[in-house]
């Protein structure tokens, strides 16, 4: 079972009231009307921080109060005008202000405060945790509840093109780090009451908010339950990125293949939600996770569905070929050159022998050395700043490769093969799958170097067997190819026309199975209505 090897984690109460170090003594203390005591407790927990402000004032000029907040995390203007001002000034249209603290509460809420997001809280610990989230707390002498305002405003970057998944045709919006914005990007695309968003807090020190999104009525409820269960079990210090979450909820951590897909594009998330998957988003990470995943998702791109199906099917084939290339090409080269040169035409064989004549190393060593340098080069280009990076990649590939050949260090055919392989690996839309295939190349090359073609076959059989035994939340990784379902084949190698794919994928066991109504499918089959046909129009005009 998938939990094999993981230690059992201590259950936390759903949503994250987890004890902190400095707050242990605050466990049950409440705001009880004593202003100084409450403020003292809070300041004791939070320690000496220069970015924590306590603003003392008097409500209606009479009741001492204090406002506690982190000024860098709040919307200062709204705090000033909607909280401080009405609290200090008092509502202009009311003559009689309350005298005692006990009546103050309702009065404030109903007539004074202009702010839309107000809550009350009695537990001091909760007040502290909310202030840490960027909310503003107001404690008033004589009132036994603290007021909490939702004033969280954190500087964020603007919504921009997703950096890793760019398309020609399709929306140009990508997720940003703030969870609220991301959820809004999804909500406006799915303006239906069926979209449900549940949040949890995971991570003791980061208290990262994690949102689980699913479509009620489409997503199988067992799946949602399982996702929630796995998330509940996580009891760690920090969740800094969705990638951390991915590793904790994966079925098989040892496999090189990803069982969770991630994306930066809201339209992709929405499409997956509509198929019956569950999306996970983490505050602070622009990448959303989508589960469960199957292998065929890794070579499908968004553009496949926005463009015409015949052309996109051909392009999808090109992508598949590139994927296969990036895996087996170098090992096939090593196998054929070192073990079975009779497979290539005679003239070519002799020319290759000529190209290799000056190279001191055997083919496998040569290929391994160039492959490793290619990987190093790739890592280097990722970290370089923009201006230098572009030039270096061209320099790296062309000049260094050419120089290596001229120096007799590598044969020209090897360089061509490696270059094609590298380019092929970029054609895979999903970076994590491309990474897996890229790295699986190396064992294949080693096997090819020992056993030739036979070794390549052994390696491929091992990889295929592994893929076939992998499951993602119970869904076999190679669906829909392996538990063969004819419906699923429509989107596997070719992209069938949209009106063909009128059912949701069976392997997700969705609630509502149809996507396109039969009427639309029927209508599409009717011959087109030639409205502006010249023959018709001309005769009509002449009349």
């Amino acid at each position, binding site marked *: 079972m998938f939990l094999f090897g993981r230690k059992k984690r201590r259950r936390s109460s759903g949503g994250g009231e987890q004890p902190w170090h400095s707050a242990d003594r605050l466990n049950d203390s409440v705001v009880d009307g004593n202003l100084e005591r409450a403020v003292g407790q809070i300041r004791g927990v939070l320690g000496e921080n220069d970015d924590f402000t306590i603003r003392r004032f008097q409500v209606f000029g009479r009741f001492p109060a204090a406002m506690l907040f982190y000024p860098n995390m709040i919307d200062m203007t709204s705090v000033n005008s909607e909280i401080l001002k009405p609290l200090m000034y008092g509502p202009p249209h009311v003559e009689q202000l309350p005298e005692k603290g006990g009546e103050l509460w309702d009065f404030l809420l109903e007539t004074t405060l202009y702010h839309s997001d107000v809550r009350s809280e009695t537990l001091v610990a909760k007040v502290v945790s909310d202030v840490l989230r960027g909310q503003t707390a107001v404690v008033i002498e004589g009132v036994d509840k603290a007021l909490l305002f939702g004033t969280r405003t954190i500087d964020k970057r603007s919504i921009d093109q997703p950096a890793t998944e760019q398309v020609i045709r399709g929306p140009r919006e990508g997720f940003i780090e703030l969870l609220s914005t991301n959820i809004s990007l999804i909500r406006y695309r799915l303006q239906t009451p069926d979209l449900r968003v549940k949040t949890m807090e995971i991570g003791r020190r980061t208290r990262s908010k994690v949102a689980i999104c699913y479509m009620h009525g489409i997503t199988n409820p067992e799946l949602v339950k399982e996702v929630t269960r796995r998330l509940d079990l996580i009891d760690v210090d920090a969740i800094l990125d969705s990638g951390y979450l991915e590793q904790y909820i994966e079925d098989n951590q040892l496999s090189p293949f990803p069982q969770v897909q991630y994306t930066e594009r809201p339209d992709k998330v929405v499409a997956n939600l509509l198929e019956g998957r569950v999306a996970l988003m983490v505050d602070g990470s622009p990448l959303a996770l989508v589960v469960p995943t199957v292998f065929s998702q890794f070579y499908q791109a968004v553009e496949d569905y926005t463009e015409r199906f015949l052309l996109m099917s051909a392009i999808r084939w090109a992508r598949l070929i590139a994927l296969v290339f990036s895996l087996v090409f170098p090992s096939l080269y090593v196998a054929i050159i070192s073990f*079975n040169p009779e497979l290539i*035409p005679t003239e070519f064989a002799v020319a290759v022998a000529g190209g290799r004549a000056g190279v001191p190393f055997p083919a496998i060593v040569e290929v391994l050395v160039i492959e490793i340098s290619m990987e190093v080069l790739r890592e280097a280009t990722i970290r370089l700043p923009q201006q230098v990076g572009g030039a270096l990649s061209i320099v790296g590939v062309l000049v260094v490769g050419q120089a290596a050949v001229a120096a007799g260090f590598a044969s020209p055919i090897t360089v061509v093969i490696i270059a094609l392989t590298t380019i092929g690996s970029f054609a895979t839309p999903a970076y994590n799958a491309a990474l897996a295939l890229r790295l699986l190349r190396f064992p294949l090359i080693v096997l090819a170097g020992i056993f030739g*073609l036979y070794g*390549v076959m052994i390696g491929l*059989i*091992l990889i*295929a*067997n592994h893929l076939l035994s992998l499951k993602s939340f119970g869904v076999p990784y190679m669906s829909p190819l392996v*538990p*063969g379902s004819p419906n699923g084949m429509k989107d596997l190698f070719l992209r069938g026309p949209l009106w063909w794919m009128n059912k949701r994928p069976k392997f997700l066991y969705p609630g509502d199975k149809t996507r396109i109504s039969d009427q639309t499918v029927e209508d599409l089959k009717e011959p087109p209505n030639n409205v502006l046909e010249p023959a018709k129009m001309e005769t009509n005009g002449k009349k």
Partner: protein
Amino acid sequence: MKQAKRITTVQVAAIMTSTIIGVGVLPIPLFAVRGADSGAPLVTLLGASVAFIGLFLIARLGMRFPGQSIVQYGEVVIGKWLSWIGSIGIIGFFAILTSLTAREFGEVVITSVLTETPLEVTVIVMLMLAAISTRNDITTFAYIHLFYFPLLIGPALLIVALSLKNADMVNLQPIWGNSHKDMLASVLTIASLFQGGFIITSVIPAMREPRKAMMASMIGLVIAGGLYVTIVGATVGVFGSEETKNLLWPTLELAKATSLPANVLERLDAAFLAVWVTAVFTTLFSSYYLAVKELSKLFRLQDHKMFSFFLLPGVFSMAMVPYNILHMYEIIQNVGRIGLFVTIAYPGLLLVVAILRKKRGEPSEERSAG
């Protein structure tokens, strides 16, 4: 571990076909022409029919006891001790079959492709591959066979189609051949190539619809048998029966003599061998899985994983027993004959006794079978 009963009929057919098509693909034309010269395709067909009888018995038996495999219902039918003898015989036979298949595979590889590699290495690598793969449960087992099934059929048919342009119909006549002295021996040898079909006794307990087991296994047999007949026909058609008798692995020579149009790839035999490795793997996988699984059931264990590496040294040493390739083929012939007895006579006996004693298995939903 609880087994899911999720294997579909299509998967069963795929399992049957890919198990049967294995290492025997290479020498089968030789066996066939030894029996009847140009009547080789006919001999193959007869061999397939003999195998058909055996398979029919096994499928009938399995359908009668849908939740159990042969080890388990053997006990029900003829009592514990007698069935233990039969079951041990089956398990031992399939362990030996695994070792011989691996050995034959190694021989082909070191003769035609990797001439310097020691035989032990090729054999042990293949056996380890099979052993690692048997650690999965039966649903993954079915997936693996289903996945490799088109990879076997496609290239085989391609090579046959491409070679037909060199075939001469005269080579295939007379249809029943000229000399028949060794025909029976050949038919039996070819029938023993289908023995892998016994795997269905392990598969039926995990099927979604055991009633369809007969149809699925028949389809699997027809496809595998059809492929064998086609290959034999193509080989004899291209080379003639006499030349085929000269070749140790005629199918390989057929691939060697074929080229893609416009001479894109010249000698397809290395590529063919690569595909054939997959075929051998599926066969080895099945027979090893059968041995391991039934052994674990014999000892009433839930988990068969520990046996997969446990049996490995034994199987490997058995694979090293024959001295050389001709000795190996003699052993294969004899073991094949014994195997026919084990895989046809014993189930036949069980079926007859079961009918007489009116024993039947429950179509079990609760049994943690498989």
